[in-house]
């Protein structure tokens, strides 16, 4: 039983972005509460009732993030509403996506898995990350996939290689591969790469230009700076030293 009314817009926000902060809920495009202070009151009330779980976005920091609990997921009949324990790098990536999508100059609504499957049934695969949205570029609307660069412990431009692998992998499927190729050929797809600062965005752009000179085609990757991400990252412990397998094992254990 949930005593305090759980706004539909908050449920929708948590379904799309998996976590919320007071600042994001008060952002102009979301407008769930007019100020961060009022959004905080709502989030704290729902936390006290066991519907939300609060934790610092970065260990030891004051800024809190909120996720839905199993109780809320059960109440709304949506087991996916409550995410598993989020490691620091996962929550920072989710925060960056939510910040970019809902509190930037333009509103970019992330698609839920159901919405993506409905709009792009041939591209949708089980377990596909919920990171697609539609990016308007002039007169053109592109399907966009979000990747987040957290710096990490490897090479500075490893994330560009990761984008290339992502695209190559999606070109391999028989049906989905053809559709994906058409999207690329008609300039209807991009990877939106979220980075922490202008310097990184410029460096990635320079690497993309160099690759284009080398291979004769430009990778459809567009870097965007997420305000506030840099400060969060330098306050957080070093990320990126775990392999994907280690991350999955850790998540299963949690």
């Amino acid at each position: 039983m949930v005593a305090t009314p759980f706004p539909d817009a908050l449920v929708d926000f948590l379904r799309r972005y998996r976590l919320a902060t007071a600042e994001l809920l008060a952002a102009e495009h979301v407008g769930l509460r007019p100020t961060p202070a009022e959004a905080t009151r709502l989030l704290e009330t729902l936390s006290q009732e066991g519907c939300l779980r609060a934790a610092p976005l970065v260990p030891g920091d004051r800024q809190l993030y909120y996720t839905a609990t199993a109780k809320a997921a059960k109440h709304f009949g949506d087991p996916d509403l409550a995410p598993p324990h989020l490691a620091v790098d996962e929550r920072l990536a989710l925060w960056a996506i939510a910040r970019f999508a809902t509190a930037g100059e333009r509103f970019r609504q992330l698609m839920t898995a159901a919405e993506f499957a409905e709009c792009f049934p041939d591209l949708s695969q089980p377990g596909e990350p919920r990171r697609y949205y539609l990016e308007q570029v002039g007169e053109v609307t592109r399907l966009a996939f979000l990747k987040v660069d957290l710096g990490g412990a490897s090479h500075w431009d490893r994330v560009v290689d990761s984008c290339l692998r992502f695209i190559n992998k999606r070109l391999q499927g028989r049906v989905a591969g053809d559709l994906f190729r058409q999207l690329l050929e008609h300039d209807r797809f991009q990877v939106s790469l979220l980075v922490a600062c202008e310097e990184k965005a410029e460096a990635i752009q320079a690497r993309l230009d160099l690759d284009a000179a080398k291979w004769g085609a430009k990778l459809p990757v567009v870097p965007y700076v997420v305000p506030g991400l840099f400060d969060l990252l330098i306050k957080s412990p070093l990320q990126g030293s775990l392999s994907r397998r280690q991350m999955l094992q850790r998540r299963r254990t949690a």
Partner: protein
Amino acid sequence: MRVAMGNNLATELLRTLTHRVHLLTAEQAARGWFATEANPLAAAAAVLAELSSRQLVERAVIEARTAGDATRPVFQWQPSQNTPCSETWLALAELLSARWSGDMFTTEVYFAAPRAANLLGVRPPGLGRPCEWSHDLRITEVYLYYRATKPALARRWRGEMARPKWGRRIAQMKDPDAMLVDDDATITQVIEIAGKYSAAHLADLHDHCAGGAYERFETWRSGAGVGYARNPYERIEIGYELW
């Protein structure tokens, strides 16, 4: 002293160590960024220690020597001037060769850790080789001079680590120590810390700035088959300073 991470000074130091200079002593940091603090050296050391504890900077003790006054260049040239003659290069080479002969001193320095380099989009600069340490500290001195006396130009300062290494892709292309760039990343001024350069080396550097770099880039660009977006040397003749 407890330092609030994410403050502008910590961020500015990280930007400096990844995009402008290789090395920084606590004393240089104190002079450049903490001069208004009650105890500038203690404040600088505290921020650098905090950055170090978060694996954003690394520290090392090095030996280096100074090369004299860092408040004016040893030599400068602008496109409006004539090409210097060979006697000029010979005299300059002699002067440069004599100035790196002071006593060695030991100092603790900070440099960007791989984590900071990855975050800010550069290759981890590392500590460099011992033969580069005096040179690297002088770059920092010159940058601090720019910062103190020409802040608008200092904001346009890009160290070689923050630029593509064209010398690895284009034959005979040089990668100067630092450059001033405009809003479009076009190079407007080259800054070089001159080691014990020979007259031939100085003439090559002049050629690089007086149109050679532009031509080499254009040749490479047309050979690559696809138009690289911009020639960073599109001003063709670019002024330079030797420090």
